[in-house]
């Protein structure tokens, strides 16, 4: 078949245009550029999009009240699909667009890939959801902060609860093979074994997205575990607990912050009853938290999704720091974050030297009558 000159010309031209077209025009510096980066499409979009909503709610409110120091806040929303290689593009794009602070990224892997780029440009980054301990503890990323507890802290809370409150001795540790879930599960396993009080009878990963989990449930049953500690997110958690109950396996189910999400209760329904999950202390009765959820419902007509409270809090903390520091310069912002405490949906918080939020109390919740109740 012969090619058509015009079409070829057209496609070549299109190709060339795409190659040289410059991105969105950069504005003059009369706004504060607030970057929001995370997975906004693909399989993990449900963890990234709630953060965009949270930032939008806070920023709309602040802008309606006249902005910060007379400057309006402009959101730069960039998708990284939770992939490290895309995250570096996202980060360079934000830096090129002159971003002042970044809320994100969502996944630890993408965050790790993106951070050196922000660090180089002296831009402060705050993640609502990246829990990998090395992000703060390695000291490699002085520009990184987060409003979520690292995996090891969460695992410690859960393990202590299982050992001291529930007093179980045989525990199955299950994870979803992801960086968050497996990281958490490994810490849990180590802490359990180090305590000398309990035995890990099963340590296995399930395949996320699998159509049926009965085999692993039978295996848990067969292992004689008295409780399951699960590391991962709520979709797999609700599938597993549902399958456990359907197979008449009535042992306790303890999980992490990725599960302490109302969606878990919604999706698992009656099967969620009695399950434990750790999460930031006292968010359900916190007036700020209630207000945030109400605003979300009003604006988007739905319940907020995963990490919404963390993202809402991070946005508040970032904007407060910009306000107090009077600039968006990294050192000034760091100082403000480390000295100013602020009321947020996850508690009254400030940040330590390493970048972890202090004041985000961590408690264990149990699902009772369809709501998470702090124990």
């Amino acid at each position, binding site marked *: 078949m012969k090619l058509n000159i015009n079409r070829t010309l057209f496609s070549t031209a299109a190709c060339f245009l795409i190659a040289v077209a410059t991105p969105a025009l950069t504005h003059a510096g009369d706004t504060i550029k607030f970057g929001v980066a995370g997975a906004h499409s693909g399989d993990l979009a449900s963890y990234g999009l709630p953060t965009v909503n949270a930032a939008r709610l806070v920023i709309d409110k602040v802008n309606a009240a006249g902005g910060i120091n007379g400057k309006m806040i402009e959101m730069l929303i960039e998708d990284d699909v939770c992939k490290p290689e895309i995250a570096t593009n996202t980060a360079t*794009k934000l830096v090129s667009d002159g971003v002042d602070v970044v809320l994100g990224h969502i996944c630890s892997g993408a965050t790790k890939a993106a951070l050196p780029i922000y660090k180089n440009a002296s831009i402060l980054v705050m993640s609502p959801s990246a829990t990998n301990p090395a992000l703060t503890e390695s000291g490699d990323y002085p520009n990184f902060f987060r409003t979520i507890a690292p995996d090891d802290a969460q695992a410690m809370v859960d393990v202590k609860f299982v050992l001291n409150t529930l007093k179980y001795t045989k525990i199955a540790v299950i994870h979803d093979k992801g*960086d968050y879930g497996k990281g958490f599960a490994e810490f849990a396993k180590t802490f359990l074994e180090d305590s000398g009080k309990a035995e890990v009878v099963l340590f296995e990963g399930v395949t996320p997205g699998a159509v049926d989990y009965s085999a692993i449930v039978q295996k848990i049953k067969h292992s004689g575990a008295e409780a399951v500690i699960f590391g991962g997110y709520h979709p797999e958690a609700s599938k597993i607990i549902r399958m456990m109950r359907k197979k008449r396996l009535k042992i306790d189910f303890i999980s992490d912050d990725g599960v302490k999400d109302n969606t878990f209760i919604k999706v698992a329904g009656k099967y969620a009853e009695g399950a434990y999950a750790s999460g930031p202390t006292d968010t359900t009765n916190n007036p700020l938290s209630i207000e945030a959820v109400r605003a979300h419902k009003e604006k988007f007509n739905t319940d907020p999704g995963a990490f919404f409270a963390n993202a809402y809090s991070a946005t508040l903390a970032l904007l407060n720091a910009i306000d107090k520091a009077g600039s968006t310069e990294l050192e000034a912002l760091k100082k403000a974050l480390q000295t100013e405490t602020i009321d947020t949906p996850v508690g009254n918080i400030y940040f330590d030297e390493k970048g972890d939020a202090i004041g985000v109390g961590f408690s264990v919740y149990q699902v009772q009558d369809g709501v998470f109740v702090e124990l």
Partner: protein
Amino acid sequence: MFSYKEIKKTALISLWFVFLTFPIMVIKVDPIERIVRWRWDNAIYVGVGIFFTRFLIEYLKDRNNKRQAAKRSANKESQPIIHSIIANPKQRNIVIVVLLSTAFIFPFIFSTYQTNIMITALMYVVLGLGLNIVVGMAGLLDLGFVAFYAVGAYSYALLNYHFGLGFWAVLPIGGCLAGLAGLILGFPVLRLRGDYLAIVTLGFGEIIRLVLENWNDFSMGPSGISNIDRPGFFGIELSLNGSIMYLYYIMIVLMIITIFIVNRLQDSRLGRAWIALREDEIACQAMGIDKRKTKLVAFSLGAFWAGIVGVIFAAKTTFINPASFTFLESAIILSIVVLGGMGSIIGVIMGAFILILLPEYLRAFSEYRMLVFGGILVAMMVFRPQGLISNIRRTYTFNKDQ
């Protein structure tokens, strides 16, 4: 075109789409609060949108047909512009010089972000050229190409982490390890035909990713390996911008080398054997070509390039984890080859630029980005099934009178 019949047909098609999209577009339920929202406005948008889209498509088709008919009646041999440029050495040299100088000054004109995504695009050009050897030339449908990419990336990450080996040392090692993996994998599976080969390679791709995810002691599992060294520049520590620029030039050079080598392979005894193998395996064997050996060479050469780019990938992102090596990645690389036109080097280059830069520049559409991307992929195939550049006829010059 705007006859009553056409309008009626278009209206019916629009109605069909309104029906089709009705549950997903119109109804939205909240199963907890037990609220149903009927978004009737969406149905109207769909109907009106499809109505005009169809007219647009019909108009374009019509125009195209007319033009083709006109051309046919004029009986002109229309030589595609790219082919004619290639055929004419003078024009070709001018184009090459222009492209090279543009490529050279690119990082000085455009922002770091532009340079950075250009590196990504160049990486996919090389990946595409590698896969092109396997799929385009030898006709072996490989859906697990990403496995070799992962082998290269992890080779660098692990050798760098454990032994502190530098980028330049690992670059050939990574390529060779990936090539070796290609040999090992290819040996048992290359006797499978067509789509069976496709699913087995897909399986191997997944197996490699799963092993990387689960074998913590070896690969550090899903949390990945961070702080991988960027390429060294004679021992000088480069700034971030500097090292991005440096990587950009490395990629330009690598791309030129790859094009050169692939081009030479294509014009060689081996390249002819690959293409013949793609056309007809039995005739090929009857002409004395060792099917298995020829396929294996194609497979492992393709893997070699994937490994090389894998090393660069690890050096570029400085962090890798198994999440980067999913099936979707293989699918994108395959799309580059098919979209560009199987077996065509220039096609692959264009395909890579379109498919990699398109989602980046579609960021303006934000959440509609991937929707548009999927739609464009379908549209391109429907309107240009043979790819952007179809088979180029090679001619040989020699003394015909001897």
